[in-house]
Structure formats: structure tokens, C-alpha cells
């Protein structure tokens, strides 16, 4: 049942021209950024070679590419999550799901899985682009893997938060602005806090992504992502139940 809802979500996404447009534009931005970084790397490579322990191509090209993707997704994911429940509610299609023999768990996890798999299709080009460098040089596989895991966990966080905010309203636009406000707010709390030890850093998903970005697999960062995602998914299920209680 979860898969059924996820597939329906994907099918609807791909039937909209705007999805294809965003997909194309984003691939273009990723590729452009990747090539720009690569060019910069090739320019400074002679100077880097004189260092005792020069940074490799993975950390100078691939890692910034992933970080840019993380920032772009922060702005972009709310545009996709806004529709998930708010639009179903507005078009009154939510009734179909509520009257079907499903629990709220199926609906929420199905929608989460559907959008997450779409976003994974969107970011699959990142490791592929980075991997294309393997044709000419040796890559740091561990760093690349850490970046991939980190970006997937981060995306899951964004989707869960966006899904919850979408479940609170009937207007997709409000859901988008709400999710964007929360995500940007968390990010600003992180970059705005001056002291390195400030607890504000801990709230931001992007702060926890930085360790992954540097190739550091820290279980506390992973736990943060999993908890963040789980809490918002549970809140969404609760909200859908309240839909039945309060009408």
C-alpha cells in the first residue's frame, strides 16, 4: 500500500510539465557548477602540487558540489512538498485516501517515499558527475560515499518537514512558504550563531550535513537526521488522524 501511494505520487509528478522543467534546470545548474569547480581546480593544480599533502579532486570539486546541492534543495524541496497533502485537501482528493482501507501510516509513508525517490532521481547525477572524474584521476571513495549518505539523509529531513507543514494547511502556497521559512530559519540560526559551541548550531540540518560533507561519518549526525525525519512523519500521521476528529 505504501508503494502504491508512492507510485501514484511519482506518476502525478511526472505528468506535470513543471516537474520536467525543474529537473532540467537543476541538472543544468549542477553541471555548470561542477564544470566551474573543475576548471578552477585545474587552474590552481600546479600550485597545489607543490604542497606537502595536497587536497585531492574529490574534496575540491565533489564536496562543494554536494554542499551547493544541499543549499539548493533547501529552497527547492518546499516547492515539491507543498502539494503533497495541501493540494489533496484543496482538490478534495484526500477523501479518497481517508475512505479507503488504509491507515494514516500508509498515506504518510507512501507520500514520503514517493517524493524522496523523485528527489533521489534528481540528485543521482551528482555522484555520477563526480564519478566521471575517475576516468582521469584517483577518487576518494569514502568521501564521496559520506557525501551521498549525508545528502540523502538531509533530503529526507527536508521532505519530512515539508510534508508536515503541507498537512497543516489547505493552500499549497502557504505550505511552501511555511516550509521554506522553517528551513531557512534553521539555517540562519546556524550561521548566525557566532560561538562555535553555541547550541543553535545543533538545530540546523545543514550544520549536521557539514561533517558528512567533510567525509566524517558521525553517528550523532545520523541520529539527528533520523530523529528529525521520524518526528515530523509522526506529527503528520497525528495531523491526518486529527483530520478525522476535527473535520
Amino acid at each position: 500500500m505504501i508503494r502504491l501511494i508512492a507510485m501514484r505520487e511519482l506518476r502525478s509528478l511526472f505528468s506535470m510539465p513543471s516537474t520536467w522543467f525543474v529537473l532540467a534546470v537543476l541538472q543544468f545548474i549542477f553541471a555548470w557548477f561542477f564544470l566551474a569547480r573543475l576548471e578552477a581546480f585545474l587552474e590552481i593544480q600546479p600550485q597545489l602540487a607543490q604542497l606537502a599533502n595536497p587536497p585531492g579532486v574529490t574534496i575540491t570539486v565533489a564536496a562543494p558540489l554536494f554542499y551547493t546541492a544541499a543549499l539548493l534543495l533547501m529552497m527547492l524541496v518546499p516547492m515539491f512538498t507543498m502539494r503533497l497533502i495541501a493540494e489533496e485537501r484543496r482538490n478534495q482528493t484526500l477523501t479518497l485516501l481517508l475512505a479507503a482501507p488504509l491507515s494514516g501510516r500508509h498515506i504518510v509513508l507512501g507520500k514520503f517515499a514517493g517524493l524522496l525517490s523523485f528527489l533521489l532521481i534528481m540528485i543521482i547525477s551528482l555522484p555520477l558527475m563526480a564519478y566521471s572524474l575517475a576516468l582521469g584521476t584517483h577518487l576518494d571513495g569514502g568521501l564521496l560515499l559520506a557525501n551521498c549518505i549525508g545528502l540523502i539523509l538531509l533530503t529526507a529531513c527536508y521532505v519530512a518537514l515539508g510534508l508536515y507543514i503541507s498537512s497543516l494547511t489547505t493552500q499549497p502556497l502557504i505550505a511552501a512558504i511555511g516550509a521554506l521559512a522553517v528551513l531557512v530559519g534553521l539555517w540562519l540560526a546556524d550561521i548566525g550563531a557566532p560561538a562555535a559551541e553555541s547550541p543553535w548550531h545543533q538545530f540546523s540540518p545543514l550544520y549536521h550535513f557539514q561533517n558528512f560533507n567533510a567525509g566524517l561519518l558521525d553517528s550523532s549526525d545520523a541520529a539527528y537526521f533520523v530523529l528529525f525525519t521520524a518526528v515530523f512523519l509522526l506529527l503528520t500521521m497525528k495531523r491526518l488522524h486529527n483530520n478525522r476528529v476535527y473535520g
Partner: protein
Amino acid sequence: MSNAIPEITLYARNLTRRFGNQLIIHDLTLELKRGEVLGLLGHNGAGKSTTLQMLTGCLLPDSGEIEICGINLKKNPQLAKAHIGYLPETPPLYKELSVDDYLTFAAYLRGIKKAEVDDALNTAVKRCGLESVRRKIISTLSKGYQQRVGIAQAIIHSPAVIVLDEPTVGLDPAQIRDIRNLIRELGNTSSVILSTHLLHEVESVCDRVEIMQQGRLIYSDSSLRMQHYGEVSGFIISLQNPPPISELQAIPGVTRVEQVSANDFRILHEAVDNPGSRLLAIAAENNWQLAQLTPLHTTLEEVFVKITSDNANLPKRPQGSSPKNIVAPNAPCFERGPQP
């Protein structure tokens, strides 16, 4: 699923629902038998849609029990909901999908197995007359076809209980006729409960009527009997050469005569003693030149208005009593001939 449908497919007991401080549904008890088409009739805002939402599990009642085919909707929602097909006021259509894709999704959603989906799809498409538009995107279809797609999703899993919320609203007369025929056909295999504020809809498709007013069921009977509610016996006659009104009054059996216009009179009489033939004889004898004699026929509109206004003045029904006490046992269902 249709093989083992029990005798009572839907049973709702003492449902109550509030929105904030406002009591929307008061102590509503409803029962639906297999193969019965029940019309839920009421003014706008009487609580029809709220009731149907509760019966389909989209809204939880504050108190009361709902059983679908003997399964408690609150304790076992997934099992119970598999027996319901629901068409809300606005058909829940994913308009970016094609009709086939949408109905396939609806079939899987109701737990139909993969091997049976094609059969279910073909049957539903055929019953709702959607053969010609199967590959079309739903948003490109007309309102009537969209409504049919909405009905198709509600019946695709051959549920025991089909709940239709104002199924014919916004359709043209030909489409309304088609959909009514479909509802009648559905009533042969499943129980159907439909809400409407169109009285002729009840007249043409329903076996039984429940009238709702301000969240209460105020009247329940077969739709045939409803037409006889508070019926007056009488006729209207047109006479080219009318006598004084006292002469009409003097005919045995006539209880009251009203002059409608110069040539038309409304004549009321006792239900058991019809003075029609005597009147004809006297009219011919005295050369009143009878042009027309029309029996008075109460329309459902009049009956509905009468019932709702009668009940507005009645004291509230005591708590816990069943509305069924106003239904005659074994009320005759569907013995009517063609409509006049």
C-alpha cells in the same frame, strides 16, 4: 466480497457529532438492508454530508457506533472500509491521470488483487459507460463524465455499501437519467445510500426515504408511502357553465368546495367515498359542460415541505428512541407503476 453480504449491511446507532459548540448530528440511528436504495433527504445544511462522512470513516462521530457488514468501523477501520464505496460531494479525482490509471489506482487502493484488477476495471468502466474515454486525461472530461468516473471508483471493488453524496448534482437531464438507472442497477447487488435535496430523485430511485432536519432524522418510510403522507382526497373540475357553489356543495360525499377561478373549482371529499361518478352524472344532467376533471395529486415537494414544517413544531424526540418507530413493518418497497 459480494458473495457473503449479510442481511444488514450498514448499521449506525446513536451517532452524535459536534463542530465546536454546535451540535450538527443529534442521536442519529440508521439501518440499511442488503439490496436497498436509501435516500437521505434534507435541506442544505441539514447534516446529510456530515452523516455520510461519518458512515464512511472520514469523520469520527463523537459518540455512537457504526457497523459495516457487522464489522465495527471504529475498532476495525481497515476491514470495515473495504466494504464501502464512497463518492463525496466533489468527486475525488486525480485530474492529471487518465481514467484507466485512476481507476486502477482506486482498485489497488481498495485491496483488489493484481489478477482481478483488469476484470474489476472492465466491469466498472462498462457499468458507468466510460468505454469511450478510458485513455483520456480526467481533467479534459466534461463534468458528467467526471461524475461517472467518481461513481466508477466507488463501485470498482463491488462493495456491500455504496455511499453517494448528491450524485446527480450539476448534470444534464440525460446524464441524470443514466446515473439514476445506474444507481437502480447497483441497488440490485449492493445497498446504496444517497443524499440529495432533489425530491424527484427520491421518487425515481429510492426504496426508502429518511428525511433529515437540523441533524435529526424526522421521517422514515418507503418513498411510496411518503407520497401519501397527509394526502388530501379531491379533484379540480372545470365547468364551462358553472352552477352556484352551493349546488356543488350539496352533492353527497363532498366535504368542501373552493372556487379557484370563474370556471374552476377544487372539490375535497372523504378518502373512502369518492363522489366523482355522482358529480359526473349531475354535471351531465344539468348541462354544466364539464371540460376537465383532475384528481389532486400531492407532489413529493408538498409532502416534504409538510413533513419538515410539521416537525419543526413538534417536541423533540426523546433521547435513545429509534426513528424506526414511525416506519410500518414490512413497508412495501417498489410496487409503483410508472410516474404520472
